């Protein structure tokens, strides 16, 4: 492998830089590789059902993707910097529940009683803070105690799910403050606010990863931690910030979800982590770190949701969804394995 690439580099030097040009375009193309897939899915959807191309259906797909896409955003950043966080799927549920517990009054007609520590208007900031704390705890476990990240966040996943069950007594919280559910419910310019917000966050994240020195540092850290450290990048600090930010984004996804469905479901986010990983990986983010873009991850989410939408419209019962997710992951992995030519250990 290195022999041949070295040869091509030599050729590039002797002649014009033409030999390297296609290679560059190919690596660029990798981020866009799902665009044709999305297009093909659109054509299939159009053939399968006339409902598919209606704006109601498409906006529905986008709204369905919005909460998942936020988790993908968080996971993509964490994976690019060479870590992984499984507990995101529990954070999306437990952060709103703890926020409710902290802001809702201890007595009243509602079924769920909190302790009323903070005023009701602060429910969203409190929720985000809870997410931040969860991410920071993950960072503490992984970076300070140096325990295995996979197992640590797997433990957090289970523990936080249990915490949610305990605090909410296994029930959904129906009566959430209006300020809390506003963002997930309202519509701006003909589309749900959640869709706009997600788009905005992806753009902001993409810009940060592309044009901020600390964003670029994620690629260096994930690509070669030792080299990043030798270059003076504060590897642990930045990784910690990314993990905490991941928790915060997951908590925000919880806010949107609660607003969207009008309640904090007891099973909010349950089992999502598989879809999150599927979307991130088929979107071109490397599980080994250092490679991938947020745009790619976004196309991953959209593709995944479109497949489910098209099959649903095509009359495949929703019970087959899990089978489809799994099949998509396997197929996408095989395709990317041979498209990039690199082994995935």
């Amino acid at each position, binding site marked *: 492998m*290195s*022999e041949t*690439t*070295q040869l*091509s*580099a*030599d050729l*590039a*030097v002797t002649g014009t*830089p033409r*030999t*390297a*040009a296609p*290679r*560059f375009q190919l*690596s660029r193309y990798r981020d866009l590789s799902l665009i044709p897939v999305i297009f093909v899915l659109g054509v299939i959807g159009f053939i399968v059902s006339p409902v598919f191309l209606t704006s109601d259906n498409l906006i529905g797909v986008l709204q369905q993707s919005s909460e998942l896409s936020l988790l993908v955003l968080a996971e993509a950043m964490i994976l690019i910097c060479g870590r992984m966080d499984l507990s995101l799927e529990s954070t999306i549920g437990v952060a709103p529940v703890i926020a409710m517990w902290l802001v809702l009054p201890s007595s009243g007609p509602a079924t769920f009683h909190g302790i009323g520590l903070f005023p009701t208007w602060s429910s969203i900031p409190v929720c985000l803070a809870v997410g931040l704390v969860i991410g920071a705890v993950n960072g503490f476990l992984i970076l300070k105690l140096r325990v295995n990240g996979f197992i640590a966040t797997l433990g957090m996943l289970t523990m936080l799910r249990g915490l949610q069950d305990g605090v909410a007594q296994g029930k959904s919280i129906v009566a959430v403050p209006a300020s809390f559910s506003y963002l997930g419910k309202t519509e701006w310019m003909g589309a749900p606010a959640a869709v706009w917000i997600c788009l905005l966050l992806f753009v902001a994240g993409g810009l940060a990863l592309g*044009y*901020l*020195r*600390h*964003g*670029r*540092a994620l*690629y*260096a850290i994930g*690509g*070669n931690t*030792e*080299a*990043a*450290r*030798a*270059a*003076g*990048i*504060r590897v642990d600090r930045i990784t910690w910030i990314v993990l905490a930010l991941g928790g915060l984004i997951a908590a925000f996804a919880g806010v949107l979800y609660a607003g969207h469905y009008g309640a904090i479901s007891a099973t909010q986010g349950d089992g999502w982590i598989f879809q999150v990983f599927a979307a991130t990986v088929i979107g071109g983010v490397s599980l080994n770190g*250092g*490679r991938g873009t947020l745009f790619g991850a976004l196309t991953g989410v959209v593709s995944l949701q479109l497949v489910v939408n098209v099959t649903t419209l095509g009359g495949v019962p929703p019970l087959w969804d899990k089978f489809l997710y799994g099949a998509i992951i396997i197929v996408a992995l095989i395709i990317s394995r041979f498209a990039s030519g690199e082994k995935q250990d």
Partner: protein
Amino acid sequence: MSNGQASTPPPAVHAEGVVKRFGPTVALDQVGITVAVGDSHALVGRNGAGKSTLVSVLTGLHAPDAGRVAFNGEPAPAPGDTAAWQARVACVYQKSMVVPELTVAENLFLNRFERGRIRWSRLRADARDLLAEYGVDVDPATRAADLTVEQGQFVEIARALSFGARFIILDEPTAQLDAAGIERLFTKLRELQQQGVAFLFISHHLQEVYDLCSTVTVYRDARHILTAPVAELGKADLVAAMTGEAAQAATTWHAKSSPAQQPAEPAAGDTVLRAEGLALDGVFQPIDFAVRAGEVLGLAGATASGNTALGETLVGLRKATGGSASVDGRGVRPGSVPHALNAGIGYVPEDRHRQGLVLGRSVAENATLTVTDQLGPYGTVLPSRTRTFAQRMIDSLDIKTSGPAQPVSDLSGGNQQKVVIARALARDPRVLVAIRPTAGVDVKSKDALLGVVRGVADRGDAAVIVSDELDDLRVCDRVIALFHGRVIAEFGSGWTDRDLVSAMEGLPAGAGGDKGAEE
């Protein structure tokens, strides 16, 4: 073994005319070696002499391109016939090859348990018999991870002997042993020699060759130089054979000695980098040195000498356990790379693949990794400015690339190393610390790279080269040689290869440690 004790048994191993090429590189050029039964034979040579390639040929890991290898007079087994190779030869590496989580007994019988279920008590009893046979005092129920280094080596030797091998290669076995451990190892080896076991002993520590071995073979630049009884070969002759410096060939280029040497007492304030009592427990002893503006200091030393660790301590990758370092009189906070960078220390790491480069990313990104704070306002990194900066680096260091956007993994070794140096120079360091800066690059790039390092000093800053390569050290104005974590000698720029190699191999006496140094 089959012939019994005949008057002149065939040699334990006999190789002749062995050629091994890796692509265009000739790793072994018509070399041979003969180790008699019960002999203890030393193989010495500088890095790149072909020692490790010979080991892989003798252990069946690589098939030679030409030449013959025979064990006890019989031709070597076919390549890939692992069992047959194991029955003839074994190599004990400096890093233990046992499975650390398994017990000694399991390691001894790994992959040759009895058929059917494993009877643990039988296994342990067999292991105990086996160890007792070779006089190894280790409890077979111990976890291999809990063994000391030398016990681990004993277990490996016993395992090799139990396969029937009567020829054992020891690759730097003493590198991680203390004096008592070395003594115990040597005692054991002498006992085994009595039983007819032959050893090929590879060491960087020449004194050990004289202590243990009866015959020595020297390789240099993939060729066989000489084989002689140790008793008949003086230390000076041995070092001369290794370096190929027969009659003081002082023609080799050295850093210009006359003008730089004159102000031997540097004016106060002239010192750029100063280390005072800098120490890292268990790796190197407290060391003092100063590097003046315009000077290149060499820190010479073989693998376990601590010179690499010293370099990594200077740049903040390791935290010193004692002493301090300062740049231009201002202290550098120990153990922090960002502080070292801001203090003006540039760093060219030892292994560009491990510490130097993010291989999947572009040349521009790698070259600007240390200066991302200078590429745009408010923490932004503007692609245009990154490209311009990288292009300037590419031009000034003559990096052969199709452009700043090319992935750095596509470049040749020499050009990759230039990117690493570009990164270190990007911040205009006051002192450049380069660890083995020319490892694995071709001759032309080597000169260019060393010229860049020399240029740092010539423009009035300072440089430190940490290396065991004589070519690297030749550009230095001054060389401090380390051995086992201590300063063993110091040289001015007029040193001979022989003196410096002797010092790095732990033989300062006779070579006259200060011969080349001028006051």
